[in-house]
């Protein structure tokens, strides 16, 4: 986005900080006017809670636990989503036969599958993993199919006339040609997976009375249901946002690194 030349080099900085700062200050002032025994969160309290939680290491390990689940579930989704996507993208008949099933599962939100995952797998990590994998599967699959089905025919023909054997064309032509689409799918899938793990941990916490799930979602739920520490909840929300942002940035950087020909 091209912005008009600023009057001074500080103008964009001031613009960027202005409204967030006003809102945070207003929030703090509002909190101060409340009675002393209030549980309402306030910026100062949030900062204090952050240092407390970060200092004890609990925040870090909970975040790590959630991230670990997301990565593992995501890895499953990559194997199945990209694998099936390559198959469906390459073969009309496979696509025609699987499309009806895929399309009927697609509108089923990941969280709707959670009760069944709990029935089948209990309230521990396997249930959380399956939700993440389910959530990440669809963006990966759909973008892979899209990418493969739009590979330029001429490129495949070119490889054939150079004597490249058929199995090898998949790896040397179709996969790189579909990579931009697949990577877009991966980025979307990872964002969805991160949301799904929070939801799964929250729900497991909410519905199994503490449960054994752990993770940052569970941590939030404990703050809500037991210690009633709203500052802690806001800290968790901020961490969730920052992780989401970092995941997005990481994938964009990876795309640039993997596909230098597009930049």
């Amino acid at each position: 986005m091209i912005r008009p030349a600023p009057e001074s080099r500080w103008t964009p900085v001031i613009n960027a900080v202005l409204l967030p700062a006003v809102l945070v200050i207003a929030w703090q002032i509002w909190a101060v006017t409340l009675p002393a025994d209030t549980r309402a969160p306030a910026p100062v309290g949030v900062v204090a809670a952050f240092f407390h939680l970060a200092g004890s290491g609990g925040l870090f390990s909970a975040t790590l636990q959630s991230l670990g689940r997301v990565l593992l579930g995501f890895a499953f989704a990559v194997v199945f989503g990209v694998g099936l996507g390559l198959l469906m993208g390459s073969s009309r008949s496979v696509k025609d036969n699987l499309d009806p099933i895929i399309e009927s599962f697609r509108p089923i939100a990941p969280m709707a599958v959670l009760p069944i995952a709990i029935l089948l797998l209990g309230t521990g990590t396997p249930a959380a993993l399956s939700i993440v994998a389910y959530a990440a599967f669809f963006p990966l699959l759909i973008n892979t199919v899209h990418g493969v089905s739009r590979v330029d025919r001429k490129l495949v023909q070119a490889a054939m006339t150079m004597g490249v054997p058929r199995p090898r064309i998949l790896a040397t032509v179709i996969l790189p040609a579909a990579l931009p689409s697949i990577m877009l799918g991966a980025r979307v899938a990872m964002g969805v997976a991160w949301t799904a793990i929070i939801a799964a941990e929250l729900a497991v916490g909410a519905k199994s009375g503490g449960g054994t799930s752990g993770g940052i979602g569970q941590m939030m739920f404990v703050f809500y249901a037991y210690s009633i520490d709203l500052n802690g909840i806001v800290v968790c929300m901020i961490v969730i946002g920052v992780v989401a942002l970092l995941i997005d940035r990481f994938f964009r950087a990876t795309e640039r690194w993997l596909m230098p020909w597009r930049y």
Partner: protein
Amino acid sequence: MSSAAERQHAGPPQPSSLQTPVLQRELDATHTWQGPGGAKPSQITRWMSKRGVIAIRSFVIFIALWWLLALWVNRPVQLPSPLRVAIALGGLIAAGEVSENALISVSRLGISLVIAAVLAIPLGFLMGLRREAEAIIDPVVELLRPISGIAWIPLALFIFGVGDILPLFILVYVAFFQILLNTIAGVRNVDQRLIAAARTMGVGRWAVLRYVIIPAALPTVMVGIRLAFAAAWAAIIAAELIGAPSGLGFAIEWYRELLMSPKVFAFLVVIGIVGYFADLALRALQRWLTPWAQGTELA
């Protein structure tokens, strides 16, 4: 002799290897194979290759596999058979539970989409048209956007309690950003030449907005609404599951706690069907509102 002689023409489809179909299709596109002996496909094979027939066949196979798996596992609480689920679904429909909960979820979805649109579209136009507004508001948007709607649930539970407001709040939050960002993009991407053309015809500021910018930006706004629906649909189940006394998400979790598995699966089917038709309805709305923008599809 060169290896050309060893290389075979791809014959009729050989499902033996994963890769063959790609190249098979590739060759098909280059020249149409007549099939062995150039025989015409029989009526039956042609009928079998119709899309609808394929879909039904796939479903039959899927349900059969499910049934076999259920028989093999033989733990009805964990994996009920399709028949039990169908019976449960029939019972729920007859009792009015399906329509009641589906209606609640869909109206929550509808109301929150309308609220989000009413808030986000004007703000999007403001931010898209005025750089100063964008410069000031955008940082807040960018700070809040990565925090998913789901992450607001505990705080919202505290503020609103379990009830109707909580799912509405989460859904409006989720839908808001999708509509806002697409509105800004839509306004930004209006072809400047259209505006210039209108201006040279002596059209006033408001008329340009009304007759040029709004129609030109509307297709992108509609895409935003469909994305908002998809995001809200994923969030509503979570919101109802944790923080509402009604709705599809509540119902599915309710029966899970009672270990009434056939009903859990029945509601899963309902969720799929409702989600599918809601998207269909939005597509129809999109076509009706912006008939000139066919092909503005979601990636």
